[in-house]
C-alpha cells in the first residue's frame, strides 16, 4: 500500500514538474510576421525613359550612384576567359535563352559571400539597421525596391552573357529558365515610336471588327526589310473581310516607309526576324 502510494506520489510529482517546465514553451510568443510589402517587378533598360515615374527615376539614380561607389572601392574585375555560348531551351515555356557554358558561371555560394563582404566593408550595419527601423512602411517599400531595381537593371543588359555573369546568385538550373530573347523596353519604344509615325491608319475601318494584322519581317543588320509576310493572309480573301486587305496594306506601307527600322545595334541574331502586330482598334474606337 505504502509502495503504491509512493509510486503514485512520485509519478504525480513528475507530472507536475513536466507540466510546470513545459508551460513556458506553451506560452511562447507567436511568430512576428513582417508586414507584406508589394514589389512591382518591371524590366528596365538602361536607356528607358520613364517620364511618368519620377520617383522611380530618382531611385534608379540613387542605386547607380551607390553602384559607382561600390565599384570604386573594389578591386578591378577579374578577367574572365572567353567561352563559347550556347542556347538553352526552357522546357516549360518553350522559350530560348543564351547562356555561357557552365564553367563560366561562378558558383552561387562564393558569390553570395562576396556580396556580403562588400556590404560589410562599405557600410556600417548598425547604422543601416537604425535607418531601417526609423523609416515608415511606405519608405520601407522604397528601400526594398532599391535592391530589386538594382537587380533588374543588371538583368536588362543587352549582352546575355554579361547578364548571366552579373546574376551571380542564380544557379545553373534556374539559369535555364531565364527568358532573354525580347527587346529591352527602350529598344521596343524606339521601334514603336518610329512605326507610329509611318502608319497612316485607314479611318474608314469598322472598329467593332478584329483589326489585328500580324506581319513577320526578315531584317538586315541595318534594319532594312528583306522580306515581309502577312501571317493571316488567308483572311484577305474571306467574304466580309474586305477591310482587312486595306488594313494589311496600310501596315505594309508603314513598314516600307519606315525602313531602315530602328533596331538595336547589337544582337542581330536575336531580332533578324521580327513580328509586328498592328492593331488599329484602339485608335479607331478613340
Amino acid at each position: 500500500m505504502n509502495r503504491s502510494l509512493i509510486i503514485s506520489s512520485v509519478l504525480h510529482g513528475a507530472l507536475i514538474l513536466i507540466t510546470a517546465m513545459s508551460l513556458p514553451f506553451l506560452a511562447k510568443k507567436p511568430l512576428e510576421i513582417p508586414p507584406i510589402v508589394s514589389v512591382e517587378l518591371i524590366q528596365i533598360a538602361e536607356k528607358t525613359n520613364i517620364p511618368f515615374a519620377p520617383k522611380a527615376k530618382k531611385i534608379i539614380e540613387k542605386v547607380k550612384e551607390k553602384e559607382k561607389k561600390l565599384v570604386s572601392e573594389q578591386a578591378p574585375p577579374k578577367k574572365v576567359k572567353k567561352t563559347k555560348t550556347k542556347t538553352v531551351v526552357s522546357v516549360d515555356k518553350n522559350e530560348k535563352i543564351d547562356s555561357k557554358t557552365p564553367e563560366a558561371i561562378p558558383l552561387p555560394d562564393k558569390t553570395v559571400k562576396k556580396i556580403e563582404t562588400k556590404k560589410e566593408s562599405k557600410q556600417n550595419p548598425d547604422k543601416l539597421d537604425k535607418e531601417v527601423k526609423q523609416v515608415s512602411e511606405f519608405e520601407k517599400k522604397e528601400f526594398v525596391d532599391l535592391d530589386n531595381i538594382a537587380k533588374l537593371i543588371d538583368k536588362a543588359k543587352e549582352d546575355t552573357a554579361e547578364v548571366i555573369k552579373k546574376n551571380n546568385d542564380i544557379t545553373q538550373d534556374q539559369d535555364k529558365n531565364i527568358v532573354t530573347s525580347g527587346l529591352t523596353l527602350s529598344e521596343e519604344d524606339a521601334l514603336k515610336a518610329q512605326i507610329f509615325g509611318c502608319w497612316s491608319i485607314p479611318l474608314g475601318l469598322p472598329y467593332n471588327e478584329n483589326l489585328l494584322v500580324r506581319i513577320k519581317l526578315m531584317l538586315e543588320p541595318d534594319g532594312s526589310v528583306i522580306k515581309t509576310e502577312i501571317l493571316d493572309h488567308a483572311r484577305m480573301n474571306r467574304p466580309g473581310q474586305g477591310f482587312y486587305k486595306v488594313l494589311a496594306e496600310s501596315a505594309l506601307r508603314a513598314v516600307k516607309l519606315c525602313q531602315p527600322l530602328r533596331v538595336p545595334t547589337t544582337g542581330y541574331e536575336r531580332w533578324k526576324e521580327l513580328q509586328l502586330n498592328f492593331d488599329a482598334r484602339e485608335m479607331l474606337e478613340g
Partner: protein
Amino acid sequence: MKKNFLILFLMALLPIKAFALIEVDITRGNLNPLPLAVSPLSIDDKSKKSFEKILKKENIGSEISTIVENNLRTSGLFNPLNKEAFLQAPDIANLKPRFEDWNLIKAQALITGKVTYVDEKLRVEFRLWDILAAKEMMALAFTTVPSNWRRVGHIISDKVYERLTGEKGYFDTRIIYVAEEGPKTQRKKRLAIMDQDGANNKFLTLGNELVLTPRFNPTSQMVTYLSYFKNLPRVYLLDIETGTQEVVGDFPGMTFAPRFSPDGKKIIMSFAKDGKSDIYTMDLENRLVEKITNHPSIDTSPSYSPNGKFIAFNSDRSGYQQIYIMKSDGSDVKRISFGNGIYGTPVWSPRGDLIAFTKLHKGKFYIGVMRTDGKGERLLTENYYQEAPSWSPNGRVLIFYRETKTNAKGEGFSAKLWSIDLTGYNERLVETQTDASDPSWSSLLSN
C-alpha cells in the same frame, strides 16, 4: 549500330542556337492625310479636239483629275500633292510609273489614267498605284456620254476612297436644300439640288410657296418636303428625274419633318394638334396613316434606324426637349440624351452606329453625335445658330446649315451649308449660289 546511336545521342546534346520570335505591338498610328499624287489623265490630240468641241473644255483629262483631287482633299483623309512637283509625264506614268520618282516627292499612292473619244462616247480608264509596294492596286475603265464627265471624276474618287480607306465613298452624290434669297423677314425659298461639290445646281421650285425640310428617299429618286399652300402645310412627293409632284395628304393642324423609311415605302412625320404633337407614319401605297406615339407632349423629328426597326425622335415629355428612341411600332420608348441643354433633330447614321443631333446649351448651338444608347456624346461644332444635320451615305460626314447674326440695322444675315467629318476637325463651307438651309444628302448614285 550502337555506335551510330551513341553519335545521334551526343548530337542531340549539342547546343542549338535558336531564339523566340520577338513580337512588337503597334497600337497607334497617325491620322494625317495620306499624301498621294493625282496625275492628270493623259489624252491624245484627236480626242482632245473632239472633247473641246463638245464640252468646251480645253483638256478634259486635266479637268477630271482636278475633280478627283478636290474630292479627295475635301475628305480630309488625303493630301493631294502639288502637280508641279511631278517628275513623270502623265502618258508615261499611266503605262508604268517610275516608283522612285514618285517616292521622291513622298507620294504613297498615285492615280494615273487615260481619256479617249470612242464612238462619240467618253472612255476613261484609271489606275491606282501603291508607290511603296511598287504595285498596281486597282484598274478600272468607264464609258459614258461626254456630258457625264464630272460624274466620272466623282466615281473615280469613290473607288480610290474605298480602296484606301476601307469604306464606301460619298462623292457621286447630290444634295437637296432650300435656296434662300431676299431679306430675312421676306425670304424667297426654293427647292434646289446640286452635286455634293456644289456643281450642277438646279432650282426645282419657283419660290411662290414656302418650302421646308426636303428629304431624299433611299434610291435618291424621290424627295419629300413640306410646302405651305394658302398658309396650310402640305407634304409633297417630288420625282427628281421626271419633275412630277404630288400632294401626299392634307393633314389637320401643323405637319413637320417628313422623312422616308429605309425601304422607301413609308413617310414618317409629326402632326401638331390641340397643343400636342405626335408621330405618324403614312404608307405610300395605300395612304393609310398610323399613329406611332400617343403622349400629351410634343414629339417631333422622327428618324428611322437603317434597318427600320427603331425610330429616334425628340420629345419634351421629361420637361424639356430630349432625344428618345423606340421600336418602329412605338413601343419601348427610351430616353437616350441626358446631357445639359436641349436636344433635337436626331438623325440615325446610315452605318447604324451613331445618332447626329442639334443641341442648344447656354445660347450656343452645337452639332454632335452620340451612340444609339446615348453614350459617347461628342460635340463636333459650335456656333451662334446651326441645325439640321444630314449624313453622307457612308456615315463619315455631316452636312448642316449655319446662320449668321444680323447687326443692329438688321443686316448681315446669311445662311450657308457647312460640312464636318466625324473627327470634328475637317469643317468646310459648301459653296452654293444663294443662301441655303435644310440640306439633305442623297445616297450613292452609282451603287
